[in-house]
C-alpha cells in the first residue's frame, strides 16, 4: 500500500495496464505532450511513445470514432475526454456505435474500450463545464459505467475497465484528483465492476450514492452521528452493472433511503434506484425514498448560487431527517 492522490492512482492504473497489454493505447486532447489537462497521463508519453499515447485534434466525434473503430478490430483504446461535457459531441459514436455494435452484429464485433475523464461540477465553471453526465451514458444498454470516489477505487476500477471486453465509461470526479488515500501497489489489484462498497456502517438510514457525492454523504453522516443518527453509506461505484443486492441489503436493515447524486434529478440515477426500491423493496420501506440532486437548472456561475445549486451535506442531512421523520 502507498498513499497516492486519485490522479496518481489513475496514472498508475494506466501505466500498469499499458505495460501489461500492447493493445492498450490512450488517445485524447492534450494527453501526450501536455501530460493531460488534469495530468492523469503524466509521463506516459515518455514511457510508451507517441503511438500509444496520442494527442488528437479537438475533434471529439472523430477521435471517439477512431477509438471505436480500433476496438472493432481488437485494439483496446482508452479515449480520454478532457471532460465528459465535451463527450456530448461524441455521443453518436458512444451510443450508436460502441453500445450497439456487439448486438447489431450478433456477437461478431465487440468493443473492448474505455471512455474516461472527469464528470460533475467543479468550481465556478459555469453551465457548460459543470454537469454530471452519468445518466446519458448509463441509459443505453451496451455501455458499462463506473464512478470511483477514492484513489483505491480509481485504480482498481480503471484497471478492471481496461481489462473488460465491453465499452466502459470511467467517470472521474473533477474535484477528486487531489484527494489522497491508500492504494494497493499490486499490479493485479482490480475492483470488479458491479460491486458496491459500504463506505460507512450504520443502521438508521441508508445514504446511497456514487462518485464525488460519496464524500458529501460521509460528511452528512458525520453530522448526523452528532445527533445520534447512524447512516449506512453505500457507494455504488458501478452504475451498470449495478449491485442491486447491496442496495436491497442496506434498505432491508435501515428501512429508509436517500439517494445523493451530482446530476440533474429528472431521469437521474436516483430515479432508477427509487424504481428498483419500489419494485423490489416496497415492504421494507418505512418512508418514501428521497433524492438529493443538483437543482433542476443549468449551473450558475456566481459562487453562492453555485453552492445553492449543488447537492450539499446540509441537504443530505435534511433529507435523512425527513425519511426518519425527525426535525
Amino acid at each position: 500500500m502507498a498513499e497516492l492522490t486519485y490522479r496518481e492512482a489513475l496514472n498508475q492504473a494506466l501505466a500498469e495496464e499499458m505495460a501489461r497489454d500492447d493493445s492498450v493505447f490512450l488517445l485524447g486532447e492534450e494527453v501526450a505532450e501536455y501530460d493531460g489537462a488534469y495530468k492523469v497521463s503524466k509521463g506516459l508519453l515518455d514511457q510508451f511513445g507517441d503511438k500509444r499515447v496520442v494527442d488528437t485534434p479537438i475533434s471529439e466525434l472523430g477521435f471517439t470514432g477512431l477509438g471505436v473503430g480500433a476496438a472493432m478490430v481488437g485494439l483496446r483504446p482508452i479515449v480520454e475526454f478532457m471532460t465528459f461535457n465535451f463527450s456530448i459531441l461524441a455521443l453518436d459514436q458512444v451510443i450508436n456505435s460502441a453500445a450497439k455494435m456487439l448486438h447489431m452484429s450478433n456477437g461478431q464485433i465487440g468493443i473492448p474500450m474505455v471512455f474516461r475523464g472527469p464528470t460533475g461540477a467543479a468550481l465556478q465553471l459555469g453551465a457548460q463545464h459543470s454537469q454530471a453526465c452519468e445518466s446519458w451514458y448509463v441509459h443505453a444498454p451496451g455501455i458499462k459505467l463506473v464512478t470511483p470516489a477514492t484513489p483505491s477505487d480509481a485504480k482498481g476500477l480503471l484497471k478492471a475497465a481496461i481489462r473488460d471486453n465491453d465499452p466502459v465509461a470511467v467517470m472521474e470526479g473533477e474535484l477528486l484528483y487531489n484527494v489522497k488515500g491508500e492504494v494497493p501497489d499490486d499490479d493485479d489489484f482490480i475492483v470488479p465492476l458491479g460491486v458496491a462498497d459500504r463506505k460507512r456502517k450504520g443502521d438508521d438510514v441508508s445514504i446511497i450514492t456514487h462518485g464525488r457525492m460519496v464524500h458529501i454523504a460521509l460528511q452528512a453522516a458525520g453530522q448526523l452521528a452528532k445527533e445520534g443518527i447512524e447512516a449506512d453509506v453505500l457507494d455504488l461505484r458501478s452504475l451498470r452493472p449495478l449491485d442491486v443486492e447491496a442496495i436491497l441489503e442496506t434498505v432491508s436493515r435501515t428501512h429508509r433511503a436517500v439517494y445523493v447524486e451530482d446530476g440533474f434529478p429528472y431521469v437521474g440515477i436516483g430515479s432508477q434506484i427509487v424504481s428498483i426500491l419500489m419494485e423490489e423493496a416496497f415492504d421494507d420501506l418505512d418512508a418514501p425514498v428521497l433524492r438529493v440532486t443538483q437543482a433542476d437548472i443549468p449551473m450558475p456561475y456566481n459562487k453562492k448560487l453555485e453552492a445553492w445549486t449543488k447537492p450539499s451535506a446540509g441537504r443530505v442531512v435534511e433529507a435523512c431527517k425527513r425519511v426518519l421523520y425527525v426535525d
Partner: protein
Amino acid sequence: MTEAKTAEQTATNGGPELDGFSRDQLLHVLREMLLYRRFEEKAEEGYAIGKIGGFCHLHIGQEATAAGCILPLRKDDYVITAYRDHTQAMAKGIPADAVMAELYGKATGSSGGMGGSMHIFGADVGFMGGHGIVGGQTGLALGMAWAIHYRGGDQVCMCFMGDAAVNQGGFHESMNMAAVWDLPVIYVVENNSYGMGTKFDRVSDTDMVTKAASHGVLASVVDGQDVIATLKAFDKIVTGVRAGEGPHFVDLQCYRFKGHSMSDPVAGTYRSKQEVDDRTENADPIKILRDRLFAAELLNQDELEAMDAEVRGVVAAADESAGAAPDPDPANLYDHVYSDINPNGRLFFDGRGR
C-alpha cells in the same frame, strides 16, 4: 471474391483481354454485378410483399461501385459502409444466402436477424458493417486504419458513404486525422447526386474534391458506372494506399435507378422521370460492360443468358432458404448486448425475468 490482378500482371498472361483485364476476370465481374442486380430485384419483390421490413436501400444502378472497388481488395482488408450495403457485403465475401436471410430477419442471416438490411456484418471476411447514421462509419474507418498502422500491417480500410455524408462534421474530423497520421484508409463517396431527395449542389458550394484537398488528402474522380474504369482506378489507389502513400478520397460518380429507400418513389419532386429513364437506359453499368464484352467478342448472348440464369438460380435459392429459415430465438436476445451477461451486479433493468 477474387484477387484482381493489376493491368500489368494480366497483360503478361497472354490470354484474351480487354483494357488490361483478362476475359475470366471481366466475366467474373459481370457475373458479380448481375448477381447484385438480381439479388436487389428479389429484395424489392420481397419488400413489396412484406417479407422484408424496415428500411431497405437498393443498389440497383450502382453495382459497378461494389464490384469495381471491392474486388481489388484482399480478404484481410476492411470494408465498412453505410446502410446501402447488400451488394458490398456480397462483394467482400458474405454469401448471398446469408445476406438475404438477414433481410428476412432470420437466425441464419449474416447478423442473426439482429441487424437487418442496414446492418449486414461479416467480420470473418473483413466486412465491418453497414451503419445507419450518415457519416458515422467514417470515424470507425479511421479507427480501423489506425489499428492497421498501430500493428504495422499492410491492409487497407475502404469506407463507403453517400454524397450527403461529406457535409457531416465527423467526416471532416476523420479526413483531417487520416491525413495527419497518413493512415491507410480510402474514403469512397458513392456520389449519386442526391442525399435522399436533396441534390448535392443545393447543400454544398464546393465540389467533393475541393473538400478532400482542403485536408491535404489525395483525391480522384472516377466514373462509377463504368466498372472497368472503376477497377483500373481502384487497382492503382489500393496499391498506393497499401504502399503507405496515406489516405485517398474518391468521388465515385454513379446513379441510383431506384428511390432512396423502398419507401420512396423512384422519381418525383426532386428528380424527373425523364432523368431517371435516361440514366437507366444510357448509364446502366451492366449494359456498359456487356456491350464492351460483346464488341470485343469476349462474350455472346447465349453465354450472357446462361450467366443470368445461373445467378437467378443463386438468388432464388437464397430467397427460398431465407424463407424457410427459423426466426431467431427470443431466449438469445440478451446474449450479445454485453460480452459477458453474468457479471457481478445487474446489467438489465426491464424486469423480464433474467
